[in-house]
């Protein structure tokens, strides 16, 4: 990832029908974005359990982004709207856990928005980069040390 600066590790949960396809289109169109993102394919943004977000962030991910279809475009009618409601809950949980809100985001990216996918990822990587490393990461390393030594 070049340089000595902080390179955040981002987990992206992308729905199969729109956002994952948008990520593929960014590839087909050769639109470059930072290599900090690890994409996990889910069938619908409505499938993403808040536990996924919280456990990723408490175990050392620097940021988690959920991507779904634009409102009205959901392959499953309104799974994305369910995800939107859930995102509000996730923000409350983040506060409870003492995690900065900026480490989590929900975005809509359609299958034809390769450029937008790359831009959303760029922006989120920058946003998390500004927040610095997830303070819980250190704790995770400590715990791992205890567990594996």
């Amino acid at each position: 990832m070049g340089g000595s600066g902080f390179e955040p590790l981002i987990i992206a949960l992308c729905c199969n029908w729109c956002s994952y396809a948008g990520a593929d289109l960014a590839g087909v169109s050769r639109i470059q974005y930072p290599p900090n993102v690890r994409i996990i394919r889910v069938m619908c943004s409505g499938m993403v359990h808040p536990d996924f977000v919280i456990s990723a962030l408490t175990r050392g991910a620097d940021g988690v982004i959920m991507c779904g279809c634009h409102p009205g475009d959901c392959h499953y009618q309104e799974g994305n709207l369910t995800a939107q409601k859930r995102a509000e809950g996730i923000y409350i949980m983040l506060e409870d856990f003492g995690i900065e809100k900026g480490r989590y985001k929900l975005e809509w990216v359609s299958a034809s928005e390769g450029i937008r996918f790359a831009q959303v990822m760029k922006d989120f990587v920058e946003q998390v980069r500004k927040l610095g490393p997830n303070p819980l990461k250190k704790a995770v390393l400590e715990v791992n040390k205890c567990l594996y030594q």
Partner: protein
Amino acid sequence: MVRLTVNEQKVSVEKGANLLGAIEKLGIKIPTLCYHKALTPYGACRLCVVEVHVPGREPALQASCSYPALDGITVFTDTERVKRARKIVAELLLARCPEAEAIKLIASSLGVTEPRIRKKNDDCVYCGLCVRMCEERMGKAAIGFTGRGPKKKLEPPFGKHNPVCWTCGACNFICPVGKKITVLTTQKPFIPIPNSYNMGLDKRSAAYILYPQAVPNKAVIDKNYCLHLNYNVCGICKEVCEARAIDYEQKDNKIEIDAGAVILSPGYEVFDPGLKPELGYGKYQNVVTSLEFERILSASGPYSGEALRPSDKKHLKRIAFLQCVGSRDHERDYCSSVCCMYATKEAIIAKEHAGEDLKCDIFYMDMRAFSKGFEQYYESAKKQGIHYIRFRVPVIRELPETQDLVLEYLNEEEKKVCSEYDLVVLSVGMVPPKHIKEFAEKTGIQLNEFNFCRTSVFDPTGTGREGVYAAGPFTEPKDIPETVIQASSAASRVISLLHDVKGTLIKPREYPPETDVGGQEPRIGVFVCHCGTNIAGFVNVPEVVEYAKTLSNVVYVENNLYTCSNDTQDRMKQKIKEHDLNRVVVASCTPRTHEPLFRNTIREAGLNSYLFEMANIRDQCSWVHMHEREAATRKSEDLVRMAVAKARLLEPLQKPLININKSALVIGGGLAGMTSSLELAGQGFEVYLLEREKELGGNLRRIHYVLNGEDPQNELKSIIEKVKTDKRIHLFVSAKILSIEGSIGNFKTRIISDREETEFEHGVIIVATGAREYRPKEYLYGEDERIITQSELEEMIASDAGFAKNGSKPNTMVMIQCVGSRDNERPYCSRICCSTAVKNALKIKEVSPDTNVYVLYRDIRTYGFREQYYTKARQKGIVFMRYDADNKPVVAKNGKSLSVKVFEQTLKLPVEIPADMVVLSAGIIPDQDNKAVAQLIKVPLTQEGFFLEAHMKLRPVDFATDGVFVCGLAHFSKSIEESIIQAQAASARANTILSKDNLELEATTSFIIDENCDGCAYCIEPCPYNAISLIEYMWQGAVKKIAEVNESMCKGCGCCMATCPKRGAMVRGFTMDQIESQIDAALQAV
């Protein structure tokens, strides 16, 4: 073969190969600039230097592109000496061309950002690519180098324009610093190949992929432009293609197909606005067609979705749309039906892209927003600041200095206004495809007066020739949903015709029995794809392979040049058997395109097809990190680790099968319901047809004539006769539904008909409950018998007493449009009233030519071929007067006489018309029983109370609930032919289910983990498919509540899984454990 060592790895290549080839064969990437695979090596830039050790000689730096691969030599590509040398080369190149992106990229990859020597700002790096390209590949030698040392110069012979140059542009194309070399060689302009997908707004090469999402996503060669095919030169693509997929010898094949039926859907072309020179299209760059503007606004378009104009790529501030270009004129007396809405859509999107301040003016004659939801969309567009100006602009002028465009028009106050715009969009209409007459002759069908396919009201998909059907805008201009509906309708006609032989040409695929992997420790095989250079060019594949070998449970790893090739499929099957693999991971492209192929392969090897996982290291890695090899390699390793983690937890899945009851329930015995029933019965299925009234026929009973002269009552009689005599149709009149249970394939319905209860089972439901005419509360309706609705007028004209015969022919008749439509209570347009008014007005003129007929309207919406009757009505002297929604007409009764007062908007004058008769064009309102029916079958309604389909554009007859379909006025107000088309479409959709003995359901559905579920029922409400219910049973002497999933309704979206606080609901193939294993694996890098 020669054998040599590169960076301590052994490699053998063919004799005569260069060193670079041997190095690249090992997956080692070194920088190059003047090297090109299809050109002779030049050794000019020296970027590719490596350290060569020849036994018995001093180690020396050599340019690997031009140095031969010799037997026994040892090569190092990455020593300090090599790095130093490359850095100096990069510095020199950067000093020569400091602004060139390609040079900057190469330099920065070698750690050089600023040269230490003086910058030359040259526009040529002297790599000689263009020179070799022109001479070796084009056989022209139109450009070369003259002079030596500092005097070296790129120029054509004698420094003059060269007649040899044929402006192919290959030199421009290959130049790494973007120099326009054709300017040196020729005076002739370089004309790029227009990219037809972007309507010629940008260029493409002769070998191209139609557009990024094209299916199949394969490159083709345009034989009109390919230099190799036309002049036997170039041929570069064949050498560059690593998959060896280029075959210049391919010829067009003549194919003969034995078919039992033919569906014609040749589509339409947009009107060529060049035929109207006064609009300046083709002359002024900033006058574009609506389709061109669609591409301009598209994210995959020529300007990546930025709202720019073609001439100077200036950001748009003011746009004008001109409607009815090529529609509603003397030659084309029809309405193209779609332009009003697409102009509105484009204006809204343009505002989204360019910002709120963008000025959008739409110049129109009548705003035709007549389909479901369109009027509301139009109203919302007005609220978003889009201006609609009722004026047909005759001429467009350009201001030459700014290339802005000037339109002159009369505003609402009838004042002449002159406005300037950055861009004018011509809303071009639909015209029949070129050569349509030959096409019609070949297919033996008739065309109408506008050269569209001739159809009739009661056979709207038939062409008049048996076995030949038509669909789409070929029969009449129409939008996406109507095209989709008519396509299904044509399919239904074909199924009816050929139902005896349906499926007889299908051979089922046979698979070996599935290996039982239950209880086995995972044994994972990983196949990593090079994808030619698509992955290997940007990711160190050998490193990824080595890494994969270190992962637990991975017992076999290999890399393939192309994992998707046929021979790799055979190899994969062999390796699965050889190594006893029970899970397979492929690290290559995207599962969205290739998962089905690999799943099929492992199934053929005896593995359950769900024991497969992909790591997307191309589309989501190598292609998006092309300049970060190290990071892309690490990311690929992470992605493989994540895929392996999930693979460990994969379980075999089966697609559940359900039996299909091969009969249908059709609710509603109007035209739509009867048409659907007859289609399905004709296709061999039992039909239960319910009608709540005593008689069949619905609204059609009150329609006595249609615009084109066909006789609806005769048709109705014959349809009813057919329904009553068809043995497969079980008709229930005066019927009421008591209950509907079950789901797709197996419904059970209880009804009461003529006081008798009946119960039957069926596999699908078609909802055809219809709608009805609004009973006006306005305009003194009901207070005077001379104030009637359009359908009452129609009855009156057609009655035995007759409108003309009763001795009181009215002198003056006033029709008022939009009664109960387009108002606050019912904000939608009822679609058919304008055409009905025109039809009845013409009929009045026919039976009573002396009667004066006035039609008071807001917009005349005679879409499609109905327009010609509107023209005819005006020719017959029927007077059309426009009123405004804020200033509606007033019907007054003074003693015995009636009068209508209206403020006429074109004249801007109040008018009072003494009337003998006032006819109200009452709208269409949804049936009052819709709510009850919707609740019984658990499908949604729109706000207005019509049934809501699964997708407005792409699934216009389906419900989101499988096995339930909608047609006719239950869906939305529509004409006779549109009802028939949709009814046939619903049958075709139903046939996709009924024609199967059993239905394969999705395997990745949700399931409940009994011990985790405490019956809290949180998961029930979020399920978009009502697939979850709460059941109770006795367990250990107490009532236990638990959620239950109906697999035949579940689509596997997983909303239940994400809602459950107890980890009690999971989606197969995407369980929480599986997704968490991927997250954990991703975080292992931390």
